[in-house]
């Protein structure tokens, strides 16, 4: 039995030996907001936060999350109120097919926890391993900047 915190709730879940966190989240806990794009730690789509740090959940053995706090895309909004990043991604047109978006937003959320006002270069470096094939990268950069502003002003 694996015990961990997922989106603020204590969770106990049975996992197979070697099972990855993404599979546990998606197929055992039904948190399908976390997507698997390559399953080889290459595309960044499966990014979730582990104790606030971005990790590639497709390649992280679930056992390593024992006793720790996992945040997924489902845990970002406060009830009905979207997180400023979610709001900005919608408004700036950064969402196209949408498959990579949970990974983009979670990676950006970790960045904004670290830096309240990242410039474009910092955003690029933070998101460099999170691929988007619709390639709305300029809109993603605009969205992260807009979210940073909105977080600052409240």
């Amino acid at each position, binding site marked *: 039995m694996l015990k961990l915190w997922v989106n603020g709730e204590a969770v106990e879940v049975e996992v197979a030996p070697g099972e990855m966190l993404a599979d546990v989240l*998606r*197929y055992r806990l*039904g*948190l*399908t*907001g*976390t*997507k*698997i*794009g*390559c*399953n*080889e730690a*290459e*595309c960044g*789509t499966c990014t979730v936060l582990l104790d606030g740090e971005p990790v590639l959940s497709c390649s992280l053995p679930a056992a390593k999350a024992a006793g720790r706090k996992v945040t*997924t*895309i*489902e845990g*970002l*909004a406060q009830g009905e109120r*979207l997180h400023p*990043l*979610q709001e900005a*991604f*919608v*408004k700036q*047109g950064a*969402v*196209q*097919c*949408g*498959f*990579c*978006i*949970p990974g983009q*937003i979670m990676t950006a959320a970790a960045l904004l926890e670290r830096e309240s006002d990242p410039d474009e270069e910092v*955003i*690029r*470096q933070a*998101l*460099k*391993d*999170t*691929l*988007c*094939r*619709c*390639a*709305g*990268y*300029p*809109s*993603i*950069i605009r969205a992260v900047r807009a979210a940073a502003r909105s977080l600052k002003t409240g």
Partner: protein
Amino acid sequence: MGHVVPRPDAVAKVTGAARFADDYDFPGLLHGRALRAGVPHAILKRLDVAKAKDLPGVVAVLTAEDIPGERNHGLVIHDWPALVGVGEKVRYVGDAVALVAAERREIATQALELIEAEYEPLPVVSDPVQARQPDAPLVHESGNLLKHIKVRKGDIEEGFAQAEVILDEVYHTPTMEHAFMEPECSIARLTAEGRIEVYVGSQIPYADRDQIARCLALPPEKVRVIGTLIGGGFGGKEDIAGQIHAALLAQATGRPVKVLYDRHESLLVHPKRHATQIRVRLGVKRDGTLVAAQTELYGDSGAYASLGEKVMTRATTHSTGPYIVPHVKADCYAMYTNNPPSGAFRGFGVTQSCFAVESAMDQLAERLGMDPVELRRKNALRVGSVTNTGQLLTESVGLLECIDRVEAEMRRLSGGRDPFKPQVVPGAPNRVRAWGLAVAFKNTGLGGGAPDKASAEVELFTDGTAEVRTSSAEIGQGLVAVLQMIAAEELSLPLEKVRVLLSDTDLTPDGGPTTASRQTYVTGNAVRLASDVVRQAVATTLAEKYDVPPEGVRFVEGLAQVNGHSVPLGEAVAMMKAEGREPKATYEYWAPKTQPLGTGGDMHFAYSFATQAAEVEVDLETGEVRVLRVIAANDVGRVINPLGLQGQIEGGVMMGLGNALTEEFIVEEGRVITDRLARYRMPSIVLTPQIIPIVVEHPTGEGPYGAKGIGEISSIPTTPAITNAVYHATGVRVKRLPVDQDWLAREIARRERPQDV
């Protein structure tokens, strides 16, 4: 129209609520997997599935004999076996030979390893030029030539006789991978009524339905395809992937079956962008007037036809560029090989031929001592021009405006310097910058005589809302928003009152394939006209009630105004229902008729045009190329949703950048080397240049509000704009994509370093 509107599907996509195929679960779900041949060309001699069947947790193992209906599928030619049988031929590494359904995915994977398959290897056909040699091994018994495509205009010999300068060059483009972020996934299940439902993110739900039905020997109405969200398509989700396999396994087991590709399988199996060899011969007068253009194209269509003939037809008809050329001869050989099949990929062949002809135009300009922009302007198609297929362009040709506006912006950003001369970066003598420019055109719609139609249904409800239904696919391009906007406009409803339901063969009428940049135009028109019919029906009801002519009813923001009364639309709908009238309509819209290639006349009902200029910085020591800025002008007829347009431009430029500099799907002797995502270098956010969009609107009369396609044109001229810039910066002409950094460094070293001016 033309106002920035956030897409209605975006909120679910940022909260994690959005459901793609793999996000669905059903009680008793089994996991299906296919055994891939792994050899490029062979006879399957023996297949033993006994051990796999005996593995605990395995519920079914199927081989070719278990297919109840037709063995083959295919969008045009049914030449692609769902499973290769014993004694039959494997034609590429991704051919499936057996299927397993098991309680868990790991068990299915384990079972695949227990299947014994023996092959008798055959000699491999690995490129399209080899494939055309008389002694080449045959991929299909019918021969290796899928299609010889010809374009003829004027008298090519007469044309070259008039030419004062002739350029003759050969270019190569590699196989390319869509690399949509969502790997293919299909879930099939039987219903209580004995039908089969297939959940899949597909670009052509009705074609899926028909292909599944044929293989399962069912009438099409026994199959329902339910479209899920699609995590990127780019043309790569038009052919069958796991749909038939999932359905076969569900039929055999009576349980729901999910067939999810891992990335490796996705890379191996689905059709790619055609690798090409393109020879371009241009004849020109000293003043820059084109008089003759001859092209010869070889396209690697891989093991199966897919959309290969159509893709290479588009490559061929666009191979002499968006130019007025009196004498044209183009020949294309679309060839079968033992490589993964090639099919639709954003640009549909035009990406490749645009790189060739736009490189040639720059080389020609240099030969003539002429400004490359001026050479293009002089020959650019305009209203009144006749294309190389004999089509008289009567409207909506914004190419000259695209050229003018991009040139003006490029010169402004160059601050008075010649943008095509190399500039050494101050303080960094190893690094030089220069601009390059290219133009393009791309058809909207299927064209070539293919019937091009879309159906849409619009229904009003008593709560004052409307629903739009069509099978057309949302693959990220923003169709939901476009259709919502069109219905809202026609019904005078606030946007949030309009819902859009897509891609369900039971609930939505056929919108046709999501391909060829056609959905805004074709399905957009179907929605516009269906909305119009519904609106008129409402007007008729109210006109009778209030005894006014139907023209006397006005619609404003969800209200019908008649005779001094303001009737909420929902109430009007209730009145209709009380009278037994249906507040809904289905409209089957037929796009203007087109003509087959070779018959003259209108091969396409609309074309989009574009010009792009790219500024690159090249490190002369390492050969590293960085794209700094891209100016992209697109004539889209009329903008419907600027936010969607922005996404198409940004994404298109980035895909063209990858095509130019980083991406290559490597296959050697039929074996896939690029079998993991890590081996496919697609651009990340760090390579993103500043993208400066310029919107050009030359409306097309029949398009909705004047709109034509944007999805492909936005990507097409980027590659040659970049490679032309590389030439201007370094003097090295790129004739083979992508630009290999080491190769470029060596070529630069072989030349004298360009001098700053």
